């Protein structure tokens, strides 16, 4: 055994090793030459790692501030995914420094590294498959569009929507089992509802305070729905409490309400 303090089991003094020709505590020599877990980091190394970590902290704060300054002073808006990528890369480097040297994984048995990597693989599956789901919800079923607004990483440059640039539906969409759009229109309704409580009880005033984008969204929705809507189901449940400020081009909405 490499461990200096090792003494053999009861009744077998260390001289047994010489007498027998092998270590009775480790007859197969599995642990010969192992020094793991007893690495002593030099003070210089520890201070260097700390300095690097502090430097990287300054760097990540600085880059985040720089993004704001550049946007304000020069009028250049850096895409959001750049900011995310820079911050996450620096954080990963910092984490690797801590794990490898402060936690001594670099000097440790490989088994501990494997345990950590397997854990990270699991984490990757968790966040990876969730992201695939979230990022593609509107690609096949347009009625799911609007359950999320593109964001986070800025859609990595991809603006995904059930509608193309001209406002035409990209897919001959399925509107859901009961023909009710659950996504965008609900969100638009919520915004109208919030505008009423926030600004005014007068629908006209509230409408004037809202972004045209919301109404554009509603308009496209109604056009889309008019074109592709299946026959209304008698079992359909609609939200009666939602205010109906927007009159669709051809009002088919709400026929099941009454």
């Amino acid at each position, binding site marked *: 055994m490499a461990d200096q*303090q090792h003494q053999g089991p*009861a009744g077998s003094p260390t001289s047994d090793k010489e007498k027998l020709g092998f270590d009775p505590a480790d007859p197969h020599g599995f642990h010969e030459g192992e020094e793991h877990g007893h690495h002593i980091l030099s003070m210089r190394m520890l201070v260097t790692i700390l300095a690097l*970590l502090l430097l990287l902290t300054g760097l990540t704060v600085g880059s985040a501030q720089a993004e704001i300054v550049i946007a304000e002073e020069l009028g250049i808006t850096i895409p959001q995914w750049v900011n995310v990528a820079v911050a996450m890369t620096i954080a990963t480097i910092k984490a690797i420094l801590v794990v490898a040297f402060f936690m001594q994984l670099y000097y440790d048995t490989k088994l501990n590294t494997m345990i950590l990597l397997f854990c990270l693989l699991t984490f990757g599956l968790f966040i990876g498959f969730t992201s695939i789901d*979230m990022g593609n919800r509107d690609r096949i079923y347009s009625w799911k569009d609007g359950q999320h607004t593109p964001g986070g990483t800025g859609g990595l440059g991809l603006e995904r929507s059930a509608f193309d640039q001209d406002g035409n539906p990209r897919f001959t969409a399925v509107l859901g089992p009961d023909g009710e759009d659950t996504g965008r229109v609900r969100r638009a309704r919520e915004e109208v509802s919030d505008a009423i409580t926030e600004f005014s009880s007068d629908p006209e005033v509230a409408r004037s305070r809202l972004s045209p984008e919301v109404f554009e969204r509603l308009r496209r929705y109604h056009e889309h729905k008019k074109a592709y809507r299946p026959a209304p189901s008698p079992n359909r449940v609609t939200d009666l409490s939602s205010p109906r400020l927007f009159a669709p081009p051809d009002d088919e909405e709400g026929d099941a309400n009454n």
Partner: protein
Amino acid sequence: MTSIDTGGKPPQNNPQSPALSTEPRWKRQPFANHWRSHAEDFDACKIGMWLFLTTEVLLFAGIFVAYAVFRMWYPEAFANGSHHLDVHWGALNTVILLISSFTVAASIRNAQLNQQGLLKINLSITLFCALLFMIIKFTFEYAPKWAEGKRPGVWFSYPFAADPNEHIWWSLYYSATGIHALHVLIGAAVLFVILLKSFKGWYGPKHYTGIEVAGLYWHLVDVIWIFLFPLLYLIH
């Protein structure tokens, strides 16, 4: 060796009572009966701790995934909410945790080199950093925000919210930093016990498993904060 009835076990696994020995505790520290050496005992403890740390990582993984999903859904709410956080306090807390991580790593070195005085000093600095972290968190971050109505979920009552979904941001902020703060408290409690034991001479070159394992936990808390800090404070 004094003649003590070891009950048939190897003498090494039956530390003499303090009354019979003047040797420091770490020299008499036994390893568990089912291991063949201190090295095996130490490695087994460390593997066990790493396995536990993976479960901790996966606990925070849930929070990180929730962050990703809600950020994807409500980017405006997250951008608005993030502006209410003060980067200076976040950065200061990051520095404090990094320094405390350094002192824990240094205290392991001290134990390995039998520098008993420095060991206690480094552990004390770590505990002081933990206290400082919690004070900053509660006094300058939680308390003012809570008073202004920037609260999680149904308690959210901030009247000037720019986005209707901002309460989701605050729910995530409080749960992420709150669970992290809980880990800081647990880590500090464990390190406090380690400090008390170090006064009784428990840790030295031959035996420092306790510091090593507690240190791993403390470093993990640091690593989690390394990721939480940019996600909450920096990415607008």
